[in-house]
């Protein structure tokens, strides 16, 4: 196994030097192996979203380095990093263009990394390929290829967003609670699709979830974050043997520690 993504000594403080100063990360490090499917859980405000945002470059970091395929991408603009990074957001409207059709959306995604020139956006040979691709979602979307995406349901849009973010085989896929805005059944379906696509394409994936069951059953590594630190990192065999009870125990221990340190502070 080779290292694909390296996060070294990353620090991030919001509103530095103001009353609202919020230190989110201090010397945070993480190594991601090629082919890893990491699920990330953690309390609210732990920094999970901020971490993904800094990897993709939508939030600048204060210090540290991010290496992708041994290349330092810390200083690169977001649009340059996204060439190698796919993303699905919690908000289903973020991943698609609502006033464009399914065909048009897919065609843009399929051309990621190639030239967006003045040749026709949808060519004949694309059409059957796109219909096949959408058919695999089994959501009936293949009947609505010329429908504007804005008219689809949240789940359908999110499925499409997932397809679009992986169609060009990114090095890394970042998923930030991408099923949190959906109803439980749709959420289940999107998770199945996520697993299927990631396995087929062997994309290295970081998935933030608030669903402990998902976090345990999916992927080969689980990370629990708290206040900008990794407080639990479970891989391989150990991960396979993990149960919700064991995980909840860890959660409680952490929170007790929290209370404890607060008491110490005030005593």
């Amino acid at each position: 196994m080779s290292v694909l993504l390296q996060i070294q000594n990353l620090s991030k403080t919001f509103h530095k030097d103001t009353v609202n100063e919020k230190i989110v990360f201090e010397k945070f490090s993480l190594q991601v192996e090629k082919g890893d499917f990491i699920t990330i859980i953690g309390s609210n405000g732990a920094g999970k979203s901020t971490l993904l945002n800094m990897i993709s470059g939508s939030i600048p970091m204060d210090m540290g380095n991010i290496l992708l395929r041994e290349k330092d991408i810390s200083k690169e603009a977001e649009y340059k990093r996204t060439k190698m990074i796919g993303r699905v957001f919690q908000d289903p409207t973020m991943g698609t263009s609502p006033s464009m059709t399914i065909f048009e959306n897919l065609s843009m995604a399929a051309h990621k990394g190639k030239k967006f020139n003045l040749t026709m956006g949808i060519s004949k040979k694309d059409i059957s390929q796109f219909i096949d691709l959408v058919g695999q979602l089994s959501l009936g979307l293949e009947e609505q290829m010329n429908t504007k995406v804005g008219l689809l349901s949240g789940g359908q849009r999110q499925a499409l967003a997932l397809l679009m973010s992986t169609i060009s085989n990114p090095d890394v896929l970042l998923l930030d609670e991408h099923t949190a805005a959906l109803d439980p059944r749709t959420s289940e379906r999107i998770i199945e699709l996520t697993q299927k696509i990631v396995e087929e394409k062997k994309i290295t994936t970081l998935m933030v979830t608030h669903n402990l069951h998902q976090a345990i059953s999916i992927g080969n590594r689980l990370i629990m974050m708290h206040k900008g630190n990794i407080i639990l990192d479970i891989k391989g065999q150990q991960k396979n043997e993990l149960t919700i009870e064991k995980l909840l125990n860890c959660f409680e221990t952490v929170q007790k520690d929290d209370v404890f340190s607060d008491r110490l502070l005030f005593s």
Partner: protein
Amino acid sequence: MDFWINILEQGLLFGIMVLGVYITYKILDFPDLSVDGSFPLGAAVTAAALIKGIHPIFAIFLSCIAGMMAGAVTGYLHVKIKITNLLSGILVMIGLYSINLRIMQKANVPLFNQKTIFSIGIQPIWIILLFALFIKILLDIFLKTKFGFLLKATGDNPQLVTSLGIDIGFTKIVGLMLSNGLVALSGSLAAQYQGFSDIGMGTGIVVMGLASIIFGEAVLRKVSFILPTTMALVGSMLYKMSMAFALKLRFPTTDLKLITAVIVALALALNEKKIGASIKKIFIVGGECPVTNTKSIKNIS
């Protein structure tokens, strides 16, 4: 009969400007005010070129290039220097006023004695129709290309464009260049059609463009499979028609701008969906921004 032909001629001629406005306002979601300067820029460049004896077709070409440069400046101010979209447009519009005067060297340049595209003896309506249709079809095709898709997505969901590995600033600048290029082209045709170029001919062009888009949408939005570019051109003709009727009702010409402004304000005020809804999105929601975002004020104080 002349009455109607005039409406058609002017509607199509200004329709090219409306197509330009359509690109920024409806596709890019960018309220670009620089068109009030790039329309007379096209006229000014054409006037200067024709007087120098340059071929009228080439004069149109030069005007278009000048307009694209103006659009590029607006885009640069917004994208690279991070000035708000409204102010970027206003800065370019103001700057162009002086530039246009320099190009024309006086406030009004008559072109009656110059050879124009309308001197070849064909009825003006055919010449204008040719230009308008050619540009409309070209724009329709462009919007179906890969780059055209990106342009649409830029206004629709900028995050998606970034996710596709494309610099959103680049697509914005190109869109503004295209838009202002078309507006200047329209200005060039207008100068040749009217037989003069005037420094004041750009005042209210934006609002006229918006009124046309609103008219087009109001009348044609229920028609299925209608292209937005068709709506823009038809809207422009409807707008010119309503102005012609206002004149027939003995409103003085100088009142037309007020009437246009009232029409646009009314359309935005009427809470009816679709009509001007997308335009409303820019202006009414956009109008709240300066209030909630006090950063610029803080920076000043």
